[in-house]
């Protein structure tokens, strides 16, 4: 449940870098995605076809402010997106550094405050920093989207303990791992930790077979979620026989 909307799929998908629009459409369907994220760019050829594809997918649109490096750019882009897509949902990215695509969390909190006050449902792309998380919630965010690793890097959960601490620090808040996942096992791990959903793009789009990979992620997210609900066994340092010793025959 995010911003009063119940979602049944816990896998959100980006729409960039697919080999073709047809593969993108198939991947969305194979992922069972209910939410897809899209960008705003200068109108060019092919814009109409993409609009139609997005509409035909039947998905809820989460427009993003990808590539924005300042509060002003991000806020302006959010307003343009709201008009264009007819939704107040916005995946807020304020990028601090071109190489790491690490969020500028100072700009992020400021932009989140402006947009939330203006009626936007803000989905902030953030880090696992707990104080930044608190500030984003205080700014009006009802969901937090920490990175797993830098965007497009496929490194998975680079700071497991930090992400675990974040999950524990914000028990009632929907948390989504956004960015950095490369393999379904990493998505499963995030879900096992108790994250509510994952958002990914490159791992599917750049797979040799994106449609099959979309399906693989869907299965992993489902498995990870089920495992979280089932409750994982505690880890031990030493072995412990699973077969009882009682009743063992004397054969030596």
């Amino acid at each position, binding site marked *: 449940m995010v911003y009063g909307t119940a979602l049944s799929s816990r896998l959100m998908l980006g729409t960039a870098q697919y080999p073709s629009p047809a593969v*993108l459409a198939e991947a969305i369907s194979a992922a069972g995605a209910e939410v897809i994220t*899209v960008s705003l760019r200068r*109108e060019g050829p092919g814009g109409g076809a993409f609009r139609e594809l997005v509409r035909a997918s039947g998905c809820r649109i989460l427009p993003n402010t990808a590539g924005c490096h300042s509060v002003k750019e991000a806020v302006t882009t959010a307003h343009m*997106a709201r008009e264009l897509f007819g939704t107040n949902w916005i995946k807020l990215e304020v990028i601090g550094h071109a190489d790491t695509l690490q969020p500028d969390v100072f700009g992020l909190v400021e932009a989140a405050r402006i947009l939330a006050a203006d009626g936007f449902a803000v989905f902030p792309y953030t880090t696992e920093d707990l104080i930044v998380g608190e500030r984003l919630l205080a700014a009006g965010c009802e969901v937090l989207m920490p990175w797993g690793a830098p965007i497009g890097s496929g490194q998975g959960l680079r700071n497991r303990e930090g992400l675990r601490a974040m999950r524990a620090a914000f028990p009632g808040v929907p948390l989504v791992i956004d960015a950095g996942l490369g393999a379904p096992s990493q998505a499963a791990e995030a879900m096992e930790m108790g994250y509510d959903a994952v958002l990914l793009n490159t791992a599917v789009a750049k797979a040799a077979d994106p449609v099959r990979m979309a399906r693989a992620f869907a299965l992993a997210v489902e498995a990870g979620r089920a495992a979280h609900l089932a409750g994982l066994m505690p880890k031990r340092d030493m072995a412990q026989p699973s077969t009882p010793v009682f009743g063992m025959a004397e054969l030596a």
Partner: protein
Amino acid sequence: MRLELNGEPVEVRATTLAELVEEQGYQPRAVATALNGVYVPLHCRAATALRDGAKIEVLSPMQGG
């Protein structure tokens, strides 16, 4: 009048943003517009006058992650 439209110099007859969108062949409801870095809502385009040298951005949905 000479403008910068999506980063390219253009010579136009339009005097308002709404006319420019029309003149350039965009579908008015399929694009979002900004003038000199400031968002201009659809319903304000007709009342938004253009001046020589203005920078206009016309954006539409694009693949993104």
